[in-house]
């Protein structure tokens, strides 16, 4: 487990809840359910919960399909903290990593029918901040509770 957080993510890793799940999207529902329940308990608006669910699913889908290459022997790690000011989520896969900056813009006409990049674009659109670990196999998501929708 990482023992540090990226710049701009002012959380103590020891305060984050961690879950390790098998590498498939049905298993990834478990951490999503826990995070959504925590958001509701902390009074997050429906719009903000939607935004966090979307970014979380994009991160986990990328981890399962691209990072771990749909390998059922691999796992994804989800760490999160939800409080009355912000939510921070980290998703890590066991793959070799990638360079987010090298992913072409999915909204350009020549890329529209390619199956890559929309998830990253949606995470960037809906989150307060998105940051990748040095390897590219770890993504950190920050959403301020009272930030309006894009």
């Amino acid at each position, binding site marked *: 487990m990482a023992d540090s957080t990226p710049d701009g993510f002012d959380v103590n890793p020891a305060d984050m809840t961690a879950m390790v799940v098998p590498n498939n999207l049905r298993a990834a529902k478990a951490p999503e359910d826990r995070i*959504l329940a925590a958001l509701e308990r902390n009074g997050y608006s429906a719009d903000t919960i939607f935004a966090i*669910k979307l970014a979380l699913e994009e991160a986990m889908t990328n981890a399962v399909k691209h990072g771990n290459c749909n390998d059922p022997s691999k796992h994804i790690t989800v760490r999160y903290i939800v409080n009355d000011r912000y939510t921070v989520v980290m998703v890590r896969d066991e793959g070799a990593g990638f360079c987010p900056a090298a992913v072409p813009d999915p909204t350009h006409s020549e890329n529209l029918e390619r199956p890559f990049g929309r998830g990253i674009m949606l995470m960037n659109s809906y989150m307060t901040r998105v940051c990748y670990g040095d390897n590219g196999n770890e993504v950190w998501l920050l959403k301020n509770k009272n930030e309006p929708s894009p």
Partner: protein
Amino acid sequence: MTSTAGYGAPLQITVRRDGPVHFVSLTGAASMYVVENMQSQILSLIDDATPNMIIDLSGLTYISSIGIGALLAADVRSQNVRGAARLVNPTGEVARILTLTNIDTIVEIHATIDDALGSLPPVAD
């Protein structure tokens, strides 16, 4: 997940066939863990006899990029059998996501089912 808010409502798929067209209504949330089944179900409907599909999104409350991929797959499958897929009346955040991803420039989106029906290509005999 106990909430019945839009982002958590179970996905319901209803299907009706009229000649060469399947009318598919998606209501609830197309969450990542249901999209594989959704895509399989939708694609299984498209064939030489029923190459066209109209997908009503007016009741869809959530979609992510993997769900968008399923809609695009329906469009590709339809075109492969000389038909077409059309999307109808996405609302709220679903409409915003389709716009953000420029999907509305690949798959035709119409305000009503009648409009979508009128835009379909004729089916070859």
